[in-house]
């Protein structure tokens, strides 16, 4: 089997304990045939970057419902780059106010999703991002 499996790290940075969304998304990606590495709650940006490196993932998915995304996301982007993983696509879901989206996009984040986001849409957009 030489077809490349899409490997996704699903992580919850920061201190909030809302893990339903992360689990729903992890399961949806598995059902779409991807390999999902789930790291669990309360991950520091350093832990997430380290896991992304060791797992050689194609995608890092962050679930943040605490409101701390503007502090956490840039740090994670910075660490991924420092580790030589600039090609990794980053997706974010959770409670993200509209006004923060342009800045997150400018940081190089590929997709942003809020409450009620369709998992089919998420799967489709991850697949799309793998093509480029």
């Amino acid at each position, binding site marked *: *089997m030489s077809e490349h499996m899409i*490997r996704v790290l699903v992580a919850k940075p920061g201190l909030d304990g809302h893990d339903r969304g992360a689990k729903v998304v992890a399961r949806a990606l598995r*059902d779409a045939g991807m390999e999902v590495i789930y790291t*669990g709650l309360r991950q520091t940006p350093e832990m997430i970057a380290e896991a992304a490196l*060791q797992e050689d993932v194609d995608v890092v998915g962050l679930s943040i419902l605490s409101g701390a995304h503007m502090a956490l996301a840039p740090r994670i982007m910075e660490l991924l780059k420092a580790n030589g993983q600039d090609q990794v696509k980053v997706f974010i879901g959770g409670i993200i106010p509209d006004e923060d989206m342009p800045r997150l996009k400018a940081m190089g984040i590929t997709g942003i999703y809020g409450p009620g986001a369709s998992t089919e849409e998420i799967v489709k957009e991850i697949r799309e991002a793998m093509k480029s």
Partner: protein
Amino acid sequence: MSLTQQVLKGNRLALSRLLTLVENNSPEGRAALAELFSHTGKAHLIGVTGSPGTGKSSLVNQLVLQYRKMDQKKVAVIAVDPSSPFTGGAVLGDRVRMRDLSGDDGVFIRSMASRGSVGGIAQTTAALAQVFDAAGYEIVIIETVGAGQSEVEIARLAHTTLVVEAPGLGDDIQAIKAGILEIADVLVINKADRPGVEHTERALRSSLELARPVSRVYHHGQAMTVKAHKPPPNTWIPPINKTIATDGSGIAKVIESIAKHMQYLRTSGEWNARERARLRSETEALVRDTLMTQFLEGLPEGAFESALERVFSHSLSPIEAAQFLAQTERPQTPRATKEQP
């Protein structure tokens, strides 16, 4: 610098990328494995298996912490979880229990999906272990899929196999099957803080005794049980260790058991015997694959399929089909050498 050279120099990103190439069984991965082979053979491969939820990942977390405290040996973890048979996807969750290991450059954790293979590990788990071995990881811990059945594959791969049990879960004696005892080099009863530990321990001990009955001597034609039974030298009796993986209790004893087992392997010659058996079966499998490919390539177009069709319609048995194909005129033999008269 080539990827393998970077791996040998200790580049972690290169290592991670190589692990992917090897896991996907890509041509680059296979070439790298061949290149790295001369650097392998130093690592102690430790398998951790047992029923789902017995605490394998938590135990691995503690074992690695302890190894890193004891000396500067680099430790790798390969954690295998099942792939969905329907979609091929997987959620690999063993890392959740290994968060204490983050931030240590001497530790490398890699999650792996079983990708359709049964027996607790994936097709390329052994190859991943080889890459870690070559990269200087002296201890490689492999956590299998939690199935609790006869995970013989792990016993074949690992030098030392830990079987993890827990009270309450597989508590019935029937759950402690002979199969799992046969592969155990060290038995661990985890969750020793839970009620029923004594029961599990008793069940394990009696199964162990059944698996290895006391030796008997014949005296004047009558069988007599030797009372002060001493196993013959060079037999290994799996020790039973109790642990609480959530707080680290009992871990030092497990480490001690693993070290003793290692010593036994070395002094009894078992280490060499296992290595040779493993390398022999690996080589044989590769020879089989190569010959099969060569053979199929050398057959006339469609010969294999038409023989198969006849097998499907039961007009030819598989044995006859194989014999027929082996005798089929080969238009372009792979080797150019002419047959001697």
